[in-house]
């Protein structure tokens, strides 16, 4: 997805530079039309970038959850290795409080459940966002082609 975005941005840069050239070459009616499309393109691009920002925000949130999941899994493994001989303490603020082993295990298990649920939630959220992003990308590329056509430049030239 990132690669596609980079490519899209590169081609949009081409549109930008095309605007300058086009403006110099022809200030006929096509130029006015091109300008209208360019404005639309700009606003659509801004929307698209906002969506991208949202996606990356959700991504980092999910990433954080995954880190927590790993850490809690490690703690669970450690707690499972213990027997009643070992005393478990929980750090609350600056003090260590003695805690029951079973209680600690239950807490960690509950936490794991919660984190897994949250990850699932973000997963579906991200899928939905990606779908919207794909749709938007199509809109952008068709707008871009329209713009190039309005300028009388060949479409899809590299």
């Amino acid at each position, binding site marked *: 997805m990132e690669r596609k975005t980079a490519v899209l941005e*590169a081609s949009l840069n081409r549109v930008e530079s095309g605007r300058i050239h086009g403006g110099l070459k022809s200030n006929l009616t096509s130029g006015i039309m091109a300008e209208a499309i360019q404005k639309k393109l700009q606003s659509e691009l801004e929307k698209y970038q906002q969506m991208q920002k949202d996606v990356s925000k959700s991504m980092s949130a999910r990433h954080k959850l995954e880190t927590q999941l790993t850490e*809690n899994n*490690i703690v669970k493994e450690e707690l499972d290795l213990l027997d009643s001989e070992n*005393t*478990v*303490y929980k750090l609350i603020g600056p003090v260590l409080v003695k805690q029951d082993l079973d209680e600690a295990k239950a807490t*960690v298990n509950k936490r794991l459940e919660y984190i897994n649920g949250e990850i699932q939630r973000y997963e579906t959220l991200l899928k939905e966002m990606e779908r919207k992003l794909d749709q938007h990308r199509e809109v952008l590329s068709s707008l871009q082609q329209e713009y190039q056509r309005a300028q009388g430049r060949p479409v899809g030239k*590299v």
Partner: protein
Amino acid sequence: MAVNLTELSLPQLEGLKGQLEQEIEFLTTSIGQLKIAQTKYVEAKDSLGVLGKDNAGKELLVPLTSSMYVPGTLSDVEHVLVDVGTGYYVEKNVEETKEFFKRKIDFLTKQIEKIQPALQEKHAMKQAVIEVMNMKIQQLHSQQASQAGTAKA
């Protein structure tokens, strides 16, 4: 996903190269962090060696702050408190603790070994992309030279 690099355009290759560079940087820092964590565990494991029977009851200076110490006696050389993560501390005896550290060190070694091949693969991929890019640029140059006289529509 098999993609023929020669079929990609220059901007696409540029993007791919950037992405690969990011991935390489991420993997390199990951390995660095894992190594730092591993060193900490190794140090902790080594310092357990001090807790021998012959050191029991000896006097030592306990740092209350980094610049102030109070005298104390080593009353217990059998048990230590280990941070197992997410704020949980477990009282273990020295043998168990050594095993704990060994487990952690082995775990980290495995993680590093998992990342290393991925990093090498990314390096190789980046190299391939750069080669194709150079090829394309040269092609473009010779094309421009031959087409210099012909006007394009």
